[in-house]
């Protein structure tokens, strides 16, 4: 099946060693696994050669041992392209793509909030989704995150220690 997909063959040939793994679950649906060194080249290649002008979504994934940043690009002509970049779990960081894909500006803030993945070079890394009083180093979508009952996560400080206000 894979060899019958001409797009897959073209992407494999063009990217060469920049892609760790290229798969296609079906026609017009290409998944490219790459490295933090080569992901910019892959994204530029998708923009220039594959007509991917639209960033559909940018996700973070916690695989417990690694983090993954997943970029979904859409092209009217060529379909959906997914770029996966694996990051180390202890200090996840990947350079911003807002200079080449301006649409990523909000997505990177969201992933930064919820997973704690750093995006060096981002022009405006303010908090996006979490509330103002939320503690700094807590990222609720991490698999090993648990709410600490003693900490204050925002909302109203109750004089009765979390009991109902009476």
């Amino acid at each position: 099946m894979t060899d019958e997909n001409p797009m897959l063959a073209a992407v494999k040939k063009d990217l060469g060693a920049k892609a760790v793994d290229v798969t296609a679950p079906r026609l017009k649906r290409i998944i490219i696994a790459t490295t933090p060194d080569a992901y910019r080249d892959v994204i530029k290649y998708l923009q220039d050669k594959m007509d991917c002008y639209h960033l559909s979504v940018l996700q973070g994934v916690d695989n417990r041992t690694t983090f993954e940043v997943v970029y979904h690009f859409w092209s009217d002509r060529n379909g959906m392209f997914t770029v996966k970049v694996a990051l180390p779990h202890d200090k996840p960081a990947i350079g911003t793509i807002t200079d080449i894909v301006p649409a990523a500006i909000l997505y990177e803030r969201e992933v930064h909030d919820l997973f704690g993945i750093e995006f060096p070079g981002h022009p405006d890394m303010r908090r996006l989704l979490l509330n103002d009083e939320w503690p700094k180093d807590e990222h609720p979508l991490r698999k090993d995150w648990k709410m600490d009952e003693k900490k204050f996560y925002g909302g109203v400080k109750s004089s009765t220690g979390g009991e109902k206000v009476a």
Partner: protein
Amino acid sequence: MFENLAKWARKKSPWILLFNSGSCNACDIEVIAAVTPRFDVERFGIQVKGSPRHADVLVVTGPVTRQQASRLRRIYDQMPDPKYVVAMGSCGSTGGVFKGLYNVMEGVDKVLPVDAYVAGCPPRPDEIIDGVIAVLGMIESGDGRKRARGKDPIRIERKPLEEVTA
């Protein structure tokens, strides 16, 4: 004498303030439906007001997100005494489907003393009116102040449809 006059005036014109503390809008739509001529709450003198300074009854929808909790508290503090709180919907009463999430306070009673709980997802307009009328009863009997500290609140539960339409 003046006390009685004030009580009479309050009972005949309980102005309500609707506050959305992060609900899905279903409850808000039902409140808007409740103030339409079909249900005719003006016969009780109920009007929806835009300012907490003019309101007697605070109707809160939604599970109270952490970001909204301090705002909700501030609005409650801005209301003149005596004031009453109706927690609307499953979310307002207990947190509903949002219970256990990192970003919600799980119910209005974690932030404010609640006088009446109106269950339902969303409650029907007649149930909302039932809740506000129950609060009117508290104004009349004068135990509002006592009740308003969160003791022994009123619970409006869903009646079978035949009972409502009869």
